[in-house]
């Protein structure tokens, strides 16, 4: 009994710690006047409107969303054939590419960012918007690579054998069996990469920071030049998008399995 009580208390404390800064930001974002006060003075949702109405914020939003859409798509396009090859073939040396796909996520992001900065500067494309998309795709390729590898590992190989006995060659097996089964993992990988790309600051800043403003860059710039409640509104907006996307993944899939709880369908 006391154990349950202690557990509840502990969970509540962790939840409070995780939620507190977000709650303050939520409170600040509904201030009526343009000042930083909590508890909020008055109530207004106008700052949320600003995200879409103010041209500077709107263009940052559009830039961020386009960047995330493109980067996530490219990340999946790189991860899918790689994960498929690693699942289909015995080629130990190909694991080098898997390691390359995992490395950017494990190393401190500043390093990858600096690598891209020197690369694009050397190549002469520094500041072009598409360079940010490629950079993000490489940086976040880890996410679809992990979800897709999990997805492939979960395919019962006898399904592929059964398809072969019924006359399906490799290409038909891929189209009619493998891809439909892998689709949920593809979608999760895309969603993970999308949300993280939307939030990413340092790589976007080092590649296109001087020519294009994404939302995180815009928030950081605004933070240095003085406060506006729109920043708080945008932050709340970000949390909501992340919670929505991960909530959807959990609703349609098994998020516990995606996070490494193998065999969870048994419990």
């Amino acid at each position, binding site marked *: 009994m006391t154990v349950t009580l202690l557990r509840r208390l502990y969970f509540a404390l962790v939840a409070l710690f995780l939620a507190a800064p977000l709650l303050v930001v939520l409170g600040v974002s509904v201030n009526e006047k343009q000042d930083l006060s909590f508890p909020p003075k008055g109530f207004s949702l106008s700052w949320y409107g600003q995200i879409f109405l103010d041209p500077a914020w709107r263009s940052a939003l559009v830039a961020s969303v386009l960047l995330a859409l493109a980067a996530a798509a490219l990340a999946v396009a790189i991860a899918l054939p790689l994960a498929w090859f690693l699942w289909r073939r015995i080629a130990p040396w190909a694991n080098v590419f898997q390691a390359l796909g995992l490395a950017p996520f494990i190393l401190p992001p500043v390093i990858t960012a600096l690598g891209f900065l020197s690369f694009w500067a050397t190549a002469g494309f520094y500041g072009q918007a598409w360079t940010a998309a490629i950079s993000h795709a490489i940086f976040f390729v880890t996410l679809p690579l992990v979800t897709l590898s999990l997805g492939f590992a979960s395919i019962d190989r006898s*399904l592929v*054998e*059964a*398809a*072969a*006995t*019924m*006359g399906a060659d490799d290409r038909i097996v891929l189209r*009619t069996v493998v891809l*439909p089964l892998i689709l949920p993992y593809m979608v999760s990988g895309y969603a993970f990469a999308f949300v993280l790309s939307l939030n990413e600051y340092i790589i976007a800043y080092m590649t296109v920071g001087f020519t294009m403003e994404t939302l995180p860059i815009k928030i950081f710039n605004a933070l240095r030049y003085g406060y506006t409640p729109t920043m708080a509104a945008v932050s709340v907006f970000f949390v909501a998008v992340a919670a929505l996307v991960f909530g959807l993944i959990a609703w349609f899939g098994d998020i516990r399995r995606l996070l490494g709880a193998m065999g969870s369908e048994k419990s």
Partner: protein
Amino acid sequence: MSGLSLKDVTKRFGDFKAVDAVNLGVPHGTFVCLLGPSGCGKTTLLRMIAGLEDPSEGAILLDGSDITPVPTHKRDFGMVFQSLALFPHLTVGQNIAYPLRIRDRPREEQARRVDELLKLIHLGGFADRPVAKLSGGQRQRVAIARALALSPRLFLLDEPLSALDAKLREAMQVELRQLQQRLGITTIVVTHDQREAMTMADLVVVMGEGRIRQAAPPIEIYRRPADAFVADFIGSTNLLAAIADGSGRATVFGRPVAGLPMPSGLAKAVLSVRPEDVRLDKVGAGAFDGTVTFVRDLGATIETFVEAGGETIVAVATPRDKPDVAVGQAVGVVLSPDACVVLAR
């Protein structure tokens, strides 16, 4: 030659020989059971026939042509997997229509064939169900129907009934055999269940340690096992050490078994006697004497355990001719010579 034939088919995994020089001829329309304990190579043999494994040596011929190099998807066989391997993202109908769909057969033909097959397996009207919503027996039937959708040249099943409970399994065995007889299709089933093999097969192939120990019709396997391994694996049997005496008679526990000669040139042998062929009588009336150690009354049959010369012999009788014995009682064990199989030791 019409039908399937295996010529010296061998499969090595490293130093281990999973299948060792198997030769077998299967005439068209035959129902074959590959039977053996786990690890005997029966599944590997089936997978080689399906093209899912390449033989290390030997050839597989179908109707006279060598199919060894033909990839699985060009063999036109139907196969039912132990896990059934139903596609979880497709409905019952889509699963059955799969081989037709990937060959771009017209939609009407696909629908008609699905209907036919669903009727055949008594699941009419199930076409739009997701496979996850089916019971074990229903999934089993769908897997069978899917494998038959293209009227395959060879129908292969790998432990197809192992996931079902005992009662359903027995019913499915009968159903599968009747289905095969109706369609006249050459069928090969892998199983470790000798009852299953006896129920369904025209030809039982008993395998052990990668080799074929005996290939024969079920009743012959039962009545005339080729060696002690087969005798012991098929049904239950009493195995008794026998030696030839001076006049060539088989002796057990030092006493000759009346009317049972040893094959010439054989000094030592094993006698296989089925429990239902062992009868108990008064002391001295049988081939040898023993002591009753346990009586198991199972209702339909009564098993009596008799110890003699350090061995336990089991006798099975029906309630009608139940022996009147009690634990601790001395009895004579009667072996009828025509029920004894003398096997080389």
